[in-house]
């Protein structure tokens, strides 16, 4: 079982990120859970979302305390949200940042496997809005796989309808542009 924690700000779509990945994994025949952090919903406030993906049924209803993967949708959270809390030593941090990996590591204090994509820039260029949820999925898929790239298409269509294609382009660009350092 792989456990993923998403950090974002209210309105950036961290919950949607977790949901789309879960739907893609379920469509592949896997088991998955996606759930929000159940806090008050306030635009701009730090929020978390959780994702579990497994080949066997998931019998757990606790939050995720020791994630294999942490995804940070907003660069400002790297230094302020303790995003590395509980992240397994062999785990992966996937961050949205315009800075190089070394700077991201410095900001959040995580020295392990790190993947960085400038998702804000990509989202602005491809979607015209700084909403990085779908863009960051490209970075996640590049860094840790989790699902087959094609599995995300249906969930994207279902969720975004006529703008699904744009989101897909943003995702693919992030997939291509993500830099990973072990």
């Amino acid at each position, binding site marked *: 079982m792989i456990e993923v924690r998403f950090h974002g700000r209210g309105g950036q779509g961290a919950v949607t990120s977790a949901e789309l990945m879960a739907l893609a994994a379920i469509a592949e025949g896997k088991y998955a859970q996606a759930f929000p952090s*159940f806090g008050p919903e306030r635009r701009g406030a730090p929020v978390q979302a959780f994702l579990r993906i497994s080949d066997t049924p998931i019998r757990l209803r606790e939050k995720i305390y020791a994630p294999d993967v942490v995804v940070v949708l907003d660069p400002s959270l790297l230094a302020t949200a303790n995003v590395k809390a509980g992240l397994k030593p062999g785990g992966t941090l996937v961050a949205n940042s315009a800075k190089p990996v070394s700077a991201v590591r410095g900001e959040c204090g995580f020295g392990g496997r790190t993947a960085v994509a400038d998702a804000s820039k990509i989202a602005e260029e491809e979607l015209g809005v700084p909403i990085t949820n779908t863009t960051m999925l490209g970075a996640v898929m590049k860094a840790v796989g989790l699902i087959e790239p094609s599995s995300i298409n249906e969930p994207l269509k279902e969720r975004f309808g006529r703008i699904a294609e744009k989101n897909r382009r943003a995702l693919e660009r992030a997939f291509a542009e993500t830099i990973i350092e072990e």
Partner: protein
Amino acid sequence: MARRVGLEVSLACAEAAKLANVDVIAAYPITPQTHIVEHLAELVADGHLDAEFVPVESEHSAMSACVGSSAAGARTFTSSSSQGLALMHEILFIASAMRLPIVMAVANRALSGPLNIWNDHSDIMAERDIGWVQTFAENGQEVLDLTLHAFKVAEDARVCLPVIVNMDGFLLTHVIEPLLMPDQAEVDAYLPAFAPQQRLDISKPISMGMVGMPEVYTEAKKATLEALLGSYEVVKEHWAGMAEQFGRSYKPIETYRAEDAEVLFVTMGSLGETCMTAIDEMREQGLKVGSVRIRLWRPFPVEDFLAAIKGAGGLIVIDRALSPGVPAGPVATELMGLLYAKGLKVPVHNFVAGLGGRDVTREDFKKMLQKAKDAFAAGGEMTCEMVGVKE
């Protein structure tokens, strides 16, 4: 053919109501609500469900509208939670006394104050004695199945009582997970159209909800009680029908690794899943522990419960609600009364856990086991303890 889908559990519940082809949904669409009624409102507005959606001005009115529509012979559904359920309180007794087969999904959540909208069982434990049939779902699939089952039981001529399907707020209602969604033909085969036993009809006038003078009140209560107790067999029968139709079987009480267990956890709702995983981990350490999960809460399946705990050296009963001023939580109090009545001296350790959205983890189960084992070994009295209180 059933389809395997990924779906938010609230939507699975709404889809079950749609598959049940409900005629009327009356609900108060503001917090504390869930996506259940939001999705049903969409389905009705978009023409996918031919039903009347009545957006009332309060939960008290929601249940009142349900009483009216059910009395008129409409298959009636609603959903509530927390303060909303509390506001319905008065009408819930009337619905069962009038023998109206309303089905309600309750997303279990805390009662204020302090103001809290997160999961626990405070809301439903305050509605323990309303005379409705009540089940508790463990996961999304159960939410869907128990909702379909609820209509089948409620409308059965031998029952004619309202049914609540309890599902943990957030821990289930807000989670996306895989489940098997039956198709309309399968559901129609299981759940035929509603054929009311009696209904308000101007061509054949009857009175419903009459005054019960002291001369008849006791008898009316006795009759309703007997209907509730009698629903036990019907509940089981329609679970058997569900196994036949959908291939999933349900029992009033579920056990997990209980056969040779020295200590048994007793849980309700979604906590059962974390409990099973914790048990697997504790078994690996050589601890002989198992669990019992109460799926049918009302009528309480006394014999099934006694059979499930047979041979256990101690019970750890987990309550997700407080019963202030008495020695234990509502579930433990009830179970201890039952054990005493049956002359069983099984030691019970009660924990109140997961109040107002506090997470209950595998580690918590391990700590609870250790504490309870120490207490059992010391031969002490039953104790009730709140889990994870920050001192």
